[in-house]
């Protein structure tokens, strides 16, 4: 009774192998490059298949369809997935990386404070952590969401629009923030401090999680190991990621230096943060119903 | 196949055909015997082509019936081959393949022989678009003759040919007809041609057969013969002056 035939088939095959969805711009790429999780899981007779996704929602789509078992996304896609009734569970959270996320303004911009955002056109990805960050920033400045003109743009497109002056400000995350700061002389009006924690989340298909707790634990452990490695080997990390993303090393370096890698358990604090986001999205009518994020958290 | 002389090969009974409320054929009665050669003449637009197409089973009729050897014709007449008034060569097939269309077995040799008969053996590898008007018509004629069908329907097969070539083609048609005893219906606007070739000449007017003239001359016929000229002129005068009501009554 777990959905369509496709899903059933996939769930069966996952007993011997695990399909992990990753994005090039995320911590799992480090794990993949180090190759440690394969070794650990091999002991259990489990093979690892890596599936690349360009965006969190696409990854959730595959997770929902049962095409992958485990993956990492930003903080908002799991909220939408839960709202749509998808069988996903939070497995663990990443450390906060608020420093690399924020509102970018071009050089010589008339915008000098949050209050200046009023009436401006601001680019961001609808329903992303940036969206939340912006809402919180506006709130802090005493502005209404309706005081600005949103321009929903994917990061790559937004970058072009930003350079061309089609948008007045751009809310985004690293390494886009770093790259734009360094290469386009842009400034960060604010970063996420005090607005959002902007964590990574590690999520799994609920059926898979129910049956394979042990494997997930091993993976989370390995992520923690790779994070520790990353924190201790920033230079190596930069030379590892830069060619993958094809972004210059300086930008990657900046992004790497202002964040710490690591896995947090799903603490009450994180649950609260996440719940606040869900509520905000509900009020923005981005999700159709109220949800309780706790229900989707793995115990 | 045993041929019963008393059963007509083609039997049209009170045949009526109209297009969008204009009556074209209005009660045609005609019996054609096995191996008979019929020529149909009549004014432009009188329904000659329509009649051939009906016999070929390419057109629905409104009333009456068509029987082929006592069997009502339903759909396509598979015994018949019709040479269309407008040629209808396939532009994407070379002359030889056009002639060989629908032939079975060693069609190539048969088709080459047929092309030789119409004097176009040398053009067999050309596209139809490279031919002159008369050459196209001869290819279409070769294509119809090569099948040696039981019923041959020729719709103005020689309309685009000069006098000499026309004579040669008439000979060819007569020769094949005699040899194979093919039941033949020839539509022509040339009364001399009709008289030279046919056992019976039929004149259509106002949707009806108004003249049916048996030509009892021995073959091959001499066009300079007086009887020949007389018959031709008799028929011609009927076409040219259709108001001789008495003559029409006599024939009926």
């Amino acid at each position, binding site marked *: 009774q777990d959905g369509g035939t496709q899903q059933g088939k996939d769930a069966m095959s996952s007993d011997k192998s695990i399909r992990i969805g990753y994005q090039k711009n995320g911590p799992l790429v480090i794990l993949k490059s180090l190759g440690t999780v394969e070794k650990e899981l091999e002991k259990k007779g489990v093979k690892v298949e890596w599936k690349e996704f360009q965006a969190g929602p696409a990854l959730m789509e595959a997770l929902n369809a049962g095409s992958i078992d485990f993956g990492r996304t930003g903080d908002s896609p799991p909220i939408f997935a839960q*709202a749509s009734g998808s069988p996903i569970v939070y497995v663990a959270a990443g450390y906060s990386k608020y420093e690399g996320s924020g509102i970018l303004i071009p050089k010589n911009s008339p915008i000098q404070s949050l209050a200046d955002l009023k009436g401006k056109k601001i680019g961001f990805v609808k329903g992303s952590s940036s969206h939340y960050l912006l809402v919180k920033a506006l709130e802090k400045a005493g502005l209404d969401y309706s005081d600005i003109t949103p321009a929903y743009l994917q990061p790559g497109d937004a970058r072009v*629009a930003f350079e061309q002056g089609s948008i007045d400000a751009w809310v985004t995350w690293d390494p886009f923030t770093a790259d734009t700061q360094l290469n386009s002389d842009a400034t960060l009006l604010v970063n996420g401090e005090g607005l959002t924690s902007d964590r990574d989340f590690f999520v799994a298909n609920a059926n898979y999680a129910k049956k394979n707790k042990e494997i997930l634990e091993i993976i989370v452990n390995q992520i923690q190991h790779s994070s520790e490695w990353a924190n201790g080997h920033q230079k190596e990390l930069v030379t590892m990621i830069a060619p993958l993303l094809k972004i210059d090393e300086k930008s990657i370096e900046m992004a790497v230096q202002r964040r710490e890698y690591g896995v947090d358990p799903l603490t009450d604090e994180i649950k609260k943060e996440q719940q606040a986001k869900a509520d905000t999205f509900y009020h923005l009518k981005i999700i159709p119903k109220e949800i309780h994020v706790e229900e989707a958290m793995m115990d | 196949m045993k041929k019963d002389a008393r059963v007509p090969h083609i039997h049209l009974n009170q045949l009526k055909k109209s297009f969008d409320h204009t009556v074209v054929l209005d009660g045609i009665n005609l019996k054609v015997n096995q191996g008979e050669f019929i020529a149909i003449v009549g004014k432009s637009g009188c329904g000659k082509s329509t009649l051939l197409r009906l016999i070929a089973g390419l057109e629905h009729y409104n009333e009456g019936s068509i029987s082929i050897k006592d069997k009502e014709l339903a759909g396509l007449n598979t015994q018949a081959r019709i040479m269309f008034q407008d040629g209808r060569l396939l532009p994407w097939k070379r002359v030889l393949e056009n002639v060989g269309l629908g032939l079975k077995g060693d069609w190539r040799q048969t088709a080459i022989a047929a092309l030789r008969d119409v004097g176009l053996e040398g053009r067999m590898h050309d596209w139809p678009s490279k031919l002159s008007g008369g050459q196209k018509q001869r290819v279409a004629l070769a294509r119809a003759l090569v099948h040696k069908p039981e019923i041959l329907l020729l719709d103005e097969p020689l309309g685009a040919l000069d006098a000499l070539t026309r004579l040669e083609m008439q000979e060819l048609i007569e020769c094949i007809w005699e040899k194979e005893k093919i039941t033949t219906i020839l539509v022509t606007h040339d009364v001399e041609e009709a008289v030279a070739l046919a056992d019976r000449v039929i004149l259509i007017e106002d949707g009806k057969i108004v003249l049916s003239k048996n030509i009892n001359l021995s073959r091959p016929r001499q066009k300079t013969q007086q009887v020949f000229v007389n018959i031709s002129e008799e028929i011609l005068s009927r076409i040219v002056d259709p108001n001789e009501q008495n003559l029409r009554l006599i024939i009926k």
Partner: protein
Amino acid sequence: MQARFKAGIRRMIPWALPVLLLVLWQLFSWNGVISDRILPAPSDVFTAAIELTSTGELTDHISISLGRATLGFLIGGLLGFFLGIMNGIFRFSDLLLDTSIQMLRNIPHLALIPLVILWFGIDETSKIFLVALGVLFPVYINTYHGIKNVEGDLIEMGKAYGLRGSKLFFSVIFPGALSSILVGIRFSLGVMWLTLIVAETISAHSGIGYMAMNAREFMQMDVIVLSILIYALFGKFSDMVAKYMEEKWLKWKT
């Protein structure tokens, strides 16, 4: 009586397959063979439609998309038409432009988006540009083919009878190519919607493509399926328009 009955059946047969699919889908949904989390039942989709309509959202999306589609279609269609005619008739412009057009035709709109933003910004212009670009090619290619395939004999005849320029075009070339041009239009009416959805990923707040992509992002399967159904109905509608034009302008083909 019987003829009318037959005509009625004839009008219903085309809908047999879509309706059958809908019915099966609904049945399987009730049965639980198709989990509604994965593919919502038609009734759920219907509910979503009602809901979106009652808030006026759906009609907004549709009317805004229709506006963009129409404008883009007109611009691209006319351009494709003229280019097709030019290259179909004039040897030199054919030589000069055809290769370039065939190369442009092959560039996916998704890959073009960064450049389009660069050139036209993120507002309506860029969306309409994309639709126009998408529509241009099927119209171009079929117009071109239609014109190249008008019987040379008839064109020769027209010229020999003193027709020149626009007279020759409207008496001989255009009617001869029309049937093929209409195929191009029919096809481009579909392409119009296909490119619009890409265009509406560029900073849009409305439009049916926006609705669909938004729903995809937020995993609202009912809205996704709804928009798919809307596209399908638009497809049928475009097709009816194209068929109507064919019947009207190609009467001589009986």
